[in-house]
């Protein structure tokens, strides 16, 4: 039992990584005043570009850099189209999701002659603290993971510092809450919106690669709704990084538990796949209920 318990916790810590990275990316755009529904497509772009470049160059580092660059490029175009052409960010975001699904499938077919799973034989991502994993209780839970997990924590902290402790972050947040103040300062709010979209692209690129690199494969729809779950985590975490991380952990725990339950309780796989959606919906509803109760007081 205790080994199962620690396995569930350990998988939850690993599983929260893409959610947390995507949610932190989404937080930048959210605070700059726009709902970024393209997280899903940006994750897919990063997952694909990263793993394919790593395979072609036989270098994970080049893969990661390419994944970041490709996703930043898509995000940049998404940003300039949205801002420069005054398009609705909801529609352009939808277009990014459709575009990413299309481009990854077309490129897969073109270069690997398949639209389904692209399996590569890359080495597993490094596990920097693997030696400490032997520690009792906390060892496997905290130290056995790939570097993506620790990078996600660092970037969550960095995101918090940038957004809430720096002048840049204050201006970025003002873009969402009080753009006129920025204009008075002589700053252009649109610059901050554009930058927030590119930053969200970089976070999402890592989120996507944290899925494809450990698998050493790209699977169509690899993000599997995580971009949307990340949006709910931002909302439930009331736009505070620590609370967002907590929400991501709860979602990941539910997923990790259901994966475990599938093995032992023989639950149909469709319900396992539905569990992230169910838990996220329930969390969304209970968050709204709690908010309503506290409003009444």
């Amino acid at each position, binding site marked *: 039992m205790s080994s199962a318990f620690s396995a569930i916790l350990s998988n939850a810590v690993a599983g929260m990584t893409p959610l947390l990275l995507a949610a932190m990316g989404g937080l930048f755009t959210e605070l700059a005043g726009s709902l970024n529904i393209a997280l899903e497509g940006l994750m897919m772009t990063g997952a694909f570009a990263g793993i394919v470049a790593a395979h072609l160059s036989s270098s994970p580092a080049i893969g990661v850099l390419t994944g970041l660059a490709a996703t930043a490029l898509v995000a940049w175009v998404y940003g300039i189209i949205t801002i420069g052409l005054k398009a609705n960010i909801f529609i352009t975001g939808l*277009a990014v999701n459709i575009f990413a699904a299309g481009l990854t499938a*077309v490129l897969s077919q073109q270069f690997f002659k398949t639209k389904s799973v692209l399996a590569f034989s890359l080495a597993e991502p490094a596990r920097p603290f693997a030696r400490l994993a032997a520690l009792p209780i906390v060892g496997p839970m905290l130290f056995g993971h790939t570097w993506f997990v620790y990078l996600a924590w660092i970037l969550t902290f960095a995101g918090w510092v940038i957004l809430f402790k720096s002048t840049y972050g204050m201006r970025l947040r003002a873009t969402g809450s009080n753009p006129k103040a920025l204009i008075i300062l002589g700053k252009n709010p649109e610059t901050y919106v554009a930058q927030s979209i590119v930053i969200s692209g970089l976070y999402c690129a890592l989120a996507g690669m944290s899925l494809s690199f450990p698998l050493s494969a790209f699977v169509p729809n690899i993000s599997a709704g995580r971009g949307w779950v990340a949006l709910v985590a931002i909302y439930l975490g009331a736009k505070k990084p620590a609370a967002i991380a907590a929400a991501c952990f709860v979602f990941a725990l539910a997923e990790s538990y259901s994966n475990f339950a599938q093995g032992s309780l023989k639950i149909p796989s469709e319900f396992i796949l539905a569990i992230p959606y169910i838990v996220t919906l329930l969390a969304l509803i209970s968050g709204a209920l709690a908010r309503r109760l506290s409003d009444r007081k």
Partner: protein
Amino acid sequence: MSIDKQGMNTREGFKIIIFTLTVSVLLTLVLLGAFASSFPDAVTAFFVRPLTNRYFFGNLLAAAIPLMIAGLGIAFAFSSSNFNLGGEGQIYAGALAAVLAARTGGTNPLAIQMLALLAASIIGAVLGGISGLLKRNLRVDELLSSFLISGITVYSVDFLIAGPLRDTSSNFMTTAAIPANSAFLKIYPPSNLSTALFLALAAVITGKFIMDRTRIGFELKIAGANREFAQYAGIGASASTILPMVLSGALHGFSGGILIFGTYFKAMRGFSAGIGWSAIAVSLIAKNNPLGLIPAAFFYAYLEAGSKSVMLGANISSEIVLIIQSAVLILITATRVPLARLVSNRNQHKKEGKR
């Protein structure tokens, strides 16, 4: 700023449509040039075969049918500022409900159709309505809730089709078929085009009438334009939130039922995937105007037919259509303001030059 919203005149709108069409055709040519093994063959297959080949042309028209009906569902939701992103699940569940209702033992084809389409609409309405209720009572964002409910629905329907409702005599993951005599009449064999086309056109025209000529439509549009004003005007939250979500869900469910009676006759696993997202795009292209849904749906179906056609023999993934569609989506909405301005500026320069 008024040009931003609805104030753009038809001529500017027309120019933007021409511009979007031109750019999307150019983009298609570039993509075919980059990916197809034989460029001329691919171009013929993409642009010409869907229009000249009877089978492809009929299927093109058939593919536009669910896009029109579900697109109307999106138009009702979007024009009242309700974001229904649950179309995928609503269509899929509607289709399954239609199959189940059709197989309850009736013998009169018309009665079977009506019962099944009613069941399909009801399940869609319930799914959409939940998001409406959550929004009105708890202020839960309907964009997120409808998407999440749709995810749950899709996996549940997947489970039902692969498990308890599976037709074990088939090698495929599918339910049993509806009674053969209850299907819509084919009107353009060998294609899948059926009398459902007339139902779709009727639905779109009725939608236009409701939106422009009835109190309900008027209230929806006011709520969409300015929710606060709508409240002062005495339009309740139910009318501006729940009703559009229910209507939107019902139309999505209905389109799922239509898919069964017109084209598929049984619910196969994942058979309707993507239609909900396409319907959103179609409605955005039509700027939520029901009559605009007709050309928008045909255009979208044309792109899909072209990409399916080019896949045969050209060794190119049919997902090429997604890239083109995303460009169309951006162009048709993004070019509204700046392009109109560009064009009118240029015309002014011309006039000034003539002087």
